[in-house]
């Protein structure tokens, strides 16, 4: 009697071989594995969205709620229906209403998130490096913390300058089109270095993670082949 573990192990082995065959050449096997993943995941997601979002947020409350609450619940139901019906080309305009709603919500979330979730906390963190109580908290290595603070403001300001969109306002020819206004141009050189340092460190992390996945797959293949040969 073959156990489920063995069956799933064999399936995992085959799928791994099919996908990794892509490293040599894009093949029928890779596509089969990829489309199998898409199909299964899509079906799973439909079930998940219905069972974990639509039902608990719309249908179940509808059953329990009072009449006045049901009126409120009708709004998302109608919006959802409009989004669905709007997929018919002739009725496309109907989906503009729920999309306008989502656009407004997304815009507000983006604004709030950008300011209160990113700009303000990150700005605070930059300024915090200059907090004298923090710098002189311990007598030793004060210079390291002062250096930290200096590097922090220089790096952040430099990186921001690097992102400046516009060219100098004075007339330019095409060879100058990558230039920024002078002061920002100097700062942007520093920012470019810090940006490189950040992306380099992240690249190392990304490669480490991907490498570990490769090692895992090779290990799985090796173990399965070992078991197979051992079983002969």
């Amino acid at each position, binding site marked *: 009697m073959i156990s489920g573990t063995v069956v*799933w192990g064999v*399936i*995992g*082995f085959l*799928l791994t071989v099919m*996908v*990794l065959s892509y490293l040599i050449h894009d093949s029928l096997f890779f*596509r*089969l*594995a*990829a*489309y199998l*993943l898409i*199909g*299964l995941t899509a*079906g799973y997601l*439909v079930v998940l*969205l219905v069972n*974990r*979002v*639509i039902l608990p*947020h719309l249908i179940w409350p509808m059953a329990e709620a009072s009449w006045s609450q049901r009126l*409120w619940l009708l709004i*998302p139901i109608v919006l959802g229906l409009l989004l669905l019906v709007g997929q018919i080309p002739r009725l496309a305009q109907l989906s*503009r209403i*729920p999309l*306008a*709603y989502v*656009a*407004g*919500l*997304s*815009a*507000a*979330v983006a*604004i709030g998130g*950008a300011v209160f979730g990113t*700009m303000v906390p990150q*700005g605070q963190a930059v300024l915090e490096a200059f907090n004298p109580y923090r710098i002189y908290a311990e007598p030793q290595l004060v210079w390291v913390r002062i250096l*930290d603070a200096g*590097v922090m403001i220089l*790096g*952040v*300001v430099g*990186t921001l300058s690097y992102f400046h969109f516009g060219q100098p306002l004075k007339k330019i020819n095409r060879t100058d089109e990558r230039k920024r206004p002078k002061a920002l141009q100097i700062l942007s050189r520093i*920012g*470019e*270095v810090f*940006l490189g*340092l*950040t992306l380099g*460190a992240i690249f*190392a992390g*990304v*490669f*480490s993670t*991907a490498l570990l*996945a*490769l090692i895992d797959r090779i290990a*799985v293949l090796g173990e399965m082949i070992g078991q197979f040969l051992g079983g002969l």
Partner: protein
Amino acid sequence: MKKLIFAAITLLVGLTVLAGFFFSDQLGPTLTLIFEWGLVLVAVGGLVGMGYLAATHIRNIVQRKKGWIYSAVLLAAFLISMVAGFTLSLDNPFYRDLILNVQVPVETSLLAILAATLLYASLRLIRTRGWTPLTIAFMASAFFSLLFDLGLIRTASGTVGEQVVAFFQRLPLVGARGVLIGMGLGGLLMGLRFLFSINSSGGER
């Protein structure tokens, strides 16, 4: 006229949510309601997306487009997964095994392919971008990060060496803060553009 109505809906919802950030006590319940509806719409949008996915592959099969056989495999897997999910429920061990034992090997293998891709790409960094402060800093940073990761550079705790190493390890954060603040600024302007319908979500010019 229709454009005005859509713009008004966007503005009304957006301003209410923004006001909710400010008057969180007074507008708390309203905010909750708006978010609930948004969540439902995003979920319905997810279902619509699945509809697009299915429609694309049904079209491929009907029109016998190149690779239609893969579309057939996809649709079969989609139907099996959906029917099994609704009949067996998400907590059924077999269903969980079915999904996870396909997802894990295939996705991990895709990530493994990324390792090879990054290896190829690392051969081409300078060829692609040239010797610039950005690329030099990028290479140096990647190098030292990998060395630290391998444990080839070790420092005793409480020494100046440890502080210096920690200082260099903090440098990537500086650029990251700059990027995050900049992205926040961009996000703020982009949000305002949609809020004021300067960028239309309807596609008309």
